[in-house]
Every structure is written in C-alpha cells, then in structure tokens.
C-alpha cells in the first residue's frame, strides 16, 4: 500500500517535470497561402462540425461553400476572435491563435479552395 503510494507519487512527478511544453505555433505548419482543402477544412472539422453539421446547428460548416458563406454573412471570424458579435465559438475554449490567424489569412487571400 505504502509502496504503491510512493510509486504513484514518483511516477506522477516524473511525468509532470519530464515533458517539455510547446506552443501551438511551434507545432503548426507555416504557410503563406492556406487553402480550404489543406488547411482550413481540418481546423473546421476538429473544432466546429461536431455541432455545425446538417441542419443541427446553423450555419452548416461541412462544405467549402458553407464555410465561405459563414465568413461572408455570419461573422465567422468575429465569432472565433472575440465576443463582439455574440458568444465566442467554439464553446469550451478559444481556438489557438495560430488557427485564427490562418483562417483570417485565408479570408483575406480570397477563400482559396485547393
């Protein structure tokens, strides 16, 4: 019993101190010309479409045209950046800054699809 306790405490403290941290920008790929297929779709899929699919939650963000129109008409960028246009999306936490920057770059580059 006592040994298990000590083992667990040691194990946990090793785990805590032995792992170096990275920032999201360090693990992100760098690109100056993001495309929907290569860069934007993966971000949307892992953060948005669990709710914004089909008619479940407006707007639908499953397709290129859906995401493009959400940016143009439904304040997508404003909603992920802050709380000026309504509660911040996604729920549960702010998108890492490099993802927001990439989406903004994609919008200002004119929604390149492929």
């Amino acid at each position, binding site marked *: 019993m006592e040994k298990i306790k000590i083992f667990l405490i040691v194990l946990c403290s090793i785990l805590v101190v032995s792992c170096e941290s990275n920032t999201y920008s360090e693990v992100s790929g760098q690109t100056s010309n993001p495309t929907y297929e290569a860069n934007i779709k*993966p971000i949307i899929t892992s953060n948005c479409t669990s709710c914004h699919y089909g008619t479940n939650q407006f707007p639908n963000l499953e397709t290129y045209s859906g995401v493009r129109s959400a940016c143009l008409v439904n304040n997508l960028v404003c909603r992920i950046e802050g709380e000026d246009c309504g509660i911040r999306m996604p729920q549960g936490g702010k998108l890492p800054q490099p993802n927001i920057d990439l989406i903004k770059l994609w919008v200002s580059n004119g929604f390149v699809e492929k």
Partner: protein
Amino acid sequence: MNVKLILSLMFGLSVIGQASAQDDLLKQLDTVKPKEKQVEIAAFKGLQICNMQSTKLAAKGEWYVLISHRFGDLTEGLDNFFGLDDAYTKIGAIYGITNGLSVGLSRQTNNKIYELTAKYRIKSQEENGFPVTVVGYNTMDINTNLSTDIYPNLEFNNRLAYTTQLLVSRKFSDRFSAEIAPVFIHKNLYDPTTERDNQFVIGTGGRYKLTKRLSVNLEYAARIDAPENDVYHDLLSVGLDIETGGHIFQLVFSNCQTMNDVYVFSNATGKWNGGSIYFGFNLYRVF
C-alpha cells in the same frame, strides 16, 4: 455418586469460567475502544464538490460509474433552450483498489479528452486527533482531437496535460465541511496568448447539509498570476447534492462547461457577472 459430584462440580466450574471469560472480552472491548482515535467520516457525500474533487474515495473493491453533463450557455435563453441543445458529456469509471487508493478513467466530448486519475489518502481527520483529511489527486489528460493535419509537428507528448492536487478538508460539524486544494497544472501544448504552460491554482470548496439527503455546495478556484485576458476566468460553481439509494446526484451551476480538471481550473470560459453560465449534473452510481 462420586461421578455425579465430579460432573456437577465440573459443570459449575465451566459456567463460572465462561462467565469470567465473557467479562474479560467485554473488558477488553471497553478498554481498547477509547484508545483508538475515531476517524471522522464523510466530510463530503460525493466524490466531487461540484467540479473539484472532494476528499472522499471509493472503498476497496467498489466501482463507481460516472456520467456528467454540462449543457450550453444558460444565459442564451430559448435560443438554445437554456443550453440543452449544446451538451457536453463525460462518462467514466472509478475503481477502489484499496480503501485509500482509487484509480479512474473517463472520456469527455470537448476535445475528445481521456482523463486518467489516481486518488490516494495520505491522512484522515480524527476525532480529538489529526485535524484534517489530506488526499492526493493526480490527473493526466490525453487530447485525442489534435490532428497532425493542422499541427504537422505534433508529437504524442503534446497531447498530454496534468494536474497535481493536494486536497485538504475538514469536517467542522455534521453539517459543514470545507476544503482547500493547491493545484499545479502542466500543459505540454498551450497558447501563450491566453494561458500558461505551468499554472498554479488555489481551489476552495465547501458543503452545507440542508437535510439528511440534501446538501448545498460551493467552490471557487483562483489562478495565481494567470496571463491577463478576457477569455478565461477563475472557476466559481454552486451545486446541490441529492442522495438517493446507491446514487449520488449533483446539480451544478458553473462558469466552466468542460469537465476535465486541467480545463476546470485554468480554462473556464464563463463569467458570473455578465458572461456565460452552464448548468449540468454529475451522476454517480456505486456497484
């Protein structure tokens, strides 16, 4: 004649002997009992206060199945039916290896996080003895939502985040218990614009028993020296424990929607004064 006399003498002696043996046992009980310090039990009814862990552990061989929900933003009203449209779910199990050590595994919706936990009692509160219960608690998160399509330089250890917690509770009376918990959070992946890789938090919590089966709980956790931003806030929750046979049902109102300890203590997105509030519940079933 002689035989009868001997037998009756033996019988008489044995009766006296038995009676005196009984006296001895009773005496032993009487003398041993007060020497032991009685452990105060049940500072908290549930394994959690609201989001924070309490100092209660699963007993040896007990299985707890845990189902928690946190609904969406309550303040949006009918737009999302007071949050019921946007629920997060956590499902998991906790097993008591011994009375003083239990381990758990759970999985929650947000970021598809798996959380491994270990909880171990270091010292118990005693009547007229040690004043507090001290419990250690460790969690390790595995974020399975991170994708190498978005983060090509991602390594497995970037998915991990930890909390190390020391839970110190005191049962002040049958009705009132309080807890203080220094918490250390380490994230292997973080966004420096809003959070730290190493964050120290002081958690506090308490429960007040209203009736035998009902108690009201409160918790607050202050992040020490957190980066200034308007995204994340200190945790504040209020809850109601309802105990039914074999179930512990906890209703929770909190400014944190996510249910893994790393996010609970450092990434609460809501705000009680003019921000988002989330309603939800924890349901524990003991087997």
